[in-house]
């Protein structure tokens, strides 16, 4: 684990800000879904395209699987967001966030010739904002900050 001594203050501020901004994004996406009892990933999954299209659609078409997917997705988003913001178990949360985003990317890959029901707000070729966020999370993974600013700092103290 790196320490604060290895970052300049500006670097540390930048990394912590990045962590909190991504955390905010995840947390709000999770809260919106948890608060809306009608929310379901059915439409999104059914709109999947690409290599794993049939896998995602089969999740949607099985009612109990769909319920499980919905539950896991909304609570994973919420808890990951929370973890990144407060810096608690941030490494695990970072990996979880990357896995979730990878699923979104794989279900809606911005490949040539694919159009999706939900129009995107920008124009993408191969790289979309999911990939950008995954890359940002990877940066957070290799430059962790929660041991410096965050609850993980306390864990670390207890462990030591």
């Amino acid at each position, binding site marked *: 684990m790196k320490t604060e001594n290895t970052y300049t203050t500006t670097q540390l501020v930048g990394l912590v800000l990045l962590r909190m901004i991504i955390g905010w994004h995840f947390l709000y996406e999770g809260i919106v879904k948890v608060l809306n009892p009608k*929310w379901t990933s059915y439409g999104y999954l059914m709109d999947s395209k690409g290599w794993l299209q049939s896998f995602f659609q089969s999740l949607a078409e099985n009612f109990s699987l769909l319920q499980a997917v919905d539950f896991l997705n909304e609570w994973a988003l919420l808890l990951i967001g929370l973890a990144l913001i407060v810096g608690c178990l941030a490494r695990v949360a970072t990996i979880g966030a990357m896995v979730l985003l990878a699923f979104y990317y794989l279900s809606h890959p911005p490949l040539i010739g694919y159009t999706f029901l939900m129009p995107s707000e920008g124009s993408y070729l191969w790289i979309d904002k999911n990939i950008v966020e995954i890359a940002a999370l990877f940066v957070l993974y290799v430059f962790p900050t929660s041991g410096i600013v965050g609850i993980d700092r306390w864990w670390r103290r207890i462990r030591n």
Partner: protein
Amino acid sequence: MNKLDREKVEGQPESSTRRELLKTIASVPVLGAMAYGVYKRSKYDRMRRDLSDVFKLDNLTPPVMETQPDGKQIRIGLIGFGIRGKQLMRGIGFAEPQYIENLKEAHKRNPKDTRYADFMEQENLNVVVNGVCDIFDVYGEAAILTGSNLHREGLNGHYAAPPKRYRHYRELLAADDIDAVIIAAPDHWHGTMAMDAALAGKHVYLEKPMTWTVPETYRLREIIKQTGVVFQLGHQGRQTDSYLKAKEIIEKDILGHVSLIEVCTNRNDPNGAWVYDLIEGSSPETIDWKQFEGNADRIKEYLDYMRENGLERYVGPDSRDRFSLERFFRWRCWWDYSTGLSGDLLTHEYDAINQIMNLGIPHSATSSGGIYFFKDGRTVPDVLQTSFEFTNHDLTMLYSATLSNQRNRGKVFMGHDASMELSNTITILVDPRSTRYREKIDSGIIQPDVPFFRYVPGQTDTDAITSATELYFAQRGLLYSYVNGKKYDTTFLHLREWLECIRRGGQPSCNIDKGFEEAITAHLGTRAYLEGRTMYWDADKELITRG
């Protein structure tokens, strides 16, 4: 933590411990900002959706008549095993073995094609098929095999005892091991067969349209009422979940006064234009052409009307006794057997509207159209507009159809306060000039360009749309299309309702009175087209007049 760090922390002055704590919880206040944001946002959303004073809908679920577990078995006779006859047989659980094989094959090719599993899971309606009748040998033989396929098996399966095949429908009606008949013959036979069936004491499920000629419409109503048999007309749309919700919306006056309803049926392929395949094995030897020609009394009624009104150009052009495969398989293309767009497609639309608004028979009908694309020798139009005036309801219902473009125009109810677009789902848009919702529009609670309400079957609450994402998917049909996790076939439900009314008594949803309204309405439209003038309904005398 490295050595240097640890040294800093352990046994340190108080200021250092405080700094340590600050660093640990520095980002926690962000959660407060999030909580505040979520609170503000949900308050805004609640204000936006505060429609409780104007929008009160119940969470009604469709009243489905379940099959009684200990009900008596009903013995069915089928008349007509063409395209629709095959579908109706599947509706009561009997499919051709080859059809089952095709479904299995389709599932193998595409695991998401679940029609095989759906059909196998379709509830057993406790019926047996004892008799079948078709005047084409290939269909007749296929009907026997289908009627014996009690266990829904594929080729080379174990079939039950085969039903008896009757060459003439009257022989089938005379059989005493048949309680009820399903009639799926061509239009020109509908009324006659239904009357004969009722007189023979059989309950009747009759495909739409109810009748081919006007005079038989009155007689059929009389006979059904006299005999007291259970009669159901084949408008399976009666079982559509969203129509029940639409009825409630109309009853609660959410749209304001509805002055115009637009209904359409657009298709764009030969099959949709009734250019069906000529089936292999068909010839004068395998088709009972004499019986196909029709009932002599009905033909007389038809020809009398055409001649009396100078409409001979719509008769034929072939002589009725001349054998023709085109006319046998594509009978819908000629008035000699058909009721055209009015009988085939308009009736479904009208019945849906009649179910929702209880309009009854219109005051008048005016039609226009022509044969503009399928110039294949047909006499019925492939483009038709009919406007029906319901003066006692202060509204017009406009039907508009083409058989050479399949643009979906939906059923739209135009009210002073809101419009409702109806299909399997419902969307309501508030009118920007609505009087009733004025205040809510001005205060931004209702945005006229955003659907005010969306109903999707299977969703239990009837809240307004909660997110743009939901709206996108809902509009494209990608929300639950099944009730309680189960997809229902409306034809199956319609047949089940009829069978349960036979068992328990009671009137099915599309009974003879509704059928009478459907038939007269369609005839008004047809006559308006044929005669090129507005036709009127004299409600007191129950007569079609020319004003």
